[in-house]
């Protein structure tokens, strides 16, 4: 404040006087009408982006799972056996699109399972074993998830495996870390740790994976990939965000 700004003001006034003498009225300082409109539009863009973000966050209320879970071989079945709609999910715990599928639909799937509208067969597949160093995280995680069924923590453990999904081409998580994750979620049975570190379902998971890869009904453009989702034995398009609504509605 003070001297500098006052002399700046004097200079501007003098300049304006000279312009006025030449017959020109200079623009007023501060935003003119047009500039104000422009600023309002840009501000509106920012606000709209913020509002969308707010609603995206608040639309995801987490549902507590209270459905039954049973394992048969390498398949984990969630929900009532007599549910009218059967969903089959082929997933690999290292696959980013599987994580995306889980984060996008898990709340809706949980609600539908709780309500007895669907049952879901989660097929343990491990196609990305070579993508960790050491290799084999996909199988190790799938095995741990199968161990989580008798431990009584499968829904929470399944969620946690995706929430803390390691990156492809990383080291993955160790068996010890997978054990700890289950302990944190309340796995209390004595053989939880042995089950996870022993990786005893590995051979069965490899077999199930081979079978899935060889099953033409599961292929997209001639290749098997994860996630692959079936509704009543028909493969769905993952770009269809209404697949679950339609499945429940019987469409």
């Amino acid at each position, binding site marked *: 404040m003070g001297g500098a700004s006052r002399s700046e003001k004097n200079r501007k006034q003098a300049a304006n006087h000279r312009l*006025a003498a030449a*017959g*020109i*009225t*200079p*623009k007023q300082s501060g935003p*003119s*009408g*047009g*500039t104000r*409109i*422009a*600023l309002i*539009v*840009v*501000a509106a*863009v*920012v606000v*709209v*982006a913020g509002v*969308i*973000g707010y609603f*995206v*966050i608040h639309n*995801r209320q987490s549902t507590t799972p209270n459905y039954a879970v049973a394992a048969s071989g390498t398949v984990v079945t969630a929900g009532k056996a007599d549910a009218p709609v059967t969903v089959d999910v082929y997933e690999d715990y290292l696959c*980013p*699109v599987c*994580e*995306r599928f889980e*984060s*996008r639909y898990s709340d809706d799937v949980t609600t539908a399972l709780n309500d007895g509208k669907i049952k879901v067969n989660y097929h343990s597949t491990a196609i990305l074993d070579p993508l960790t160093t050491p290799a084999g995280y996909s199988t190790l995680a799938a095995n741990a998830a199968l161990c989580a069924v008798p431990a009584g923590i499968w829904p929470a453990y399944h969620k946690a495996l995706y*929430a803390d999904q390691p*990156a*492809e*081409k990383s080291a993955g998580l160790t068996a010890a870390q997978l054990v700890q994750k289950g302990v944190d979620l309340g796995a209390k049975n004595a053989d939880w740790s042995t089950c996870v570190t022993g990786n005893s379902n590995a051979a069965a998971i490899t077999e199930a994976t081979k079978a899935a890869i060889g099953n033409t009904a599961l292929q997209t453009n001639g290749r098997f990939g994860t996630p692959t989702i079936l509704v009543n034995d028909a493969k769905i398009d*993952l*770009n269809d965000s209404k697949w679950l609504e339609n499945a429940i509605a019987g469409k």
Partner: protein
Amino acid sequence: MERGRILDVIGTLARLGLAAVWLVSGTIKAVDPDQTYIAVRAYDVLPTGVVSVVATVLPFLELALGVLLLIGLGTRAAAALAAVVLVVFIAGVVQAWARGLSIDCGCFGGGGQVAPDATAYGTEVLRDVGFLLLAGWLIVRPHTLFALDGRLESRPVRSGERN
């Protein structure tokens, strides 16, 4: 051509160039939301809930910036917002580079994990710095040709016309 006119032309090219960048990148991201989500998540900075918000909003923010710059509405403010977004992008790439992640920036589609020898952090940062220079020009000198701003601006009037 007088100097101001040349500067206007340079500014117009910067504005339309930057608009094209946002429109292309925003469209690619908007049509493949799952890929955009994976690209954002690969930076390994945000919690999952926030990743999906950013992945949902970002494509449309980019498209909005593209449209504003294309029609030249609020050029200086749009360029300033673009510069902020670009600085965030550069920071994201630099942190991935510094932490030794091997990801694709997903700037124009793609994104996610890549082989360690397939990263292109240097090129990605340089490209974003180039875009930042375009935005910088428009912040310093937002006056351009064929812009809605020019139509909205009150033109200097003869003194006799005022009151």
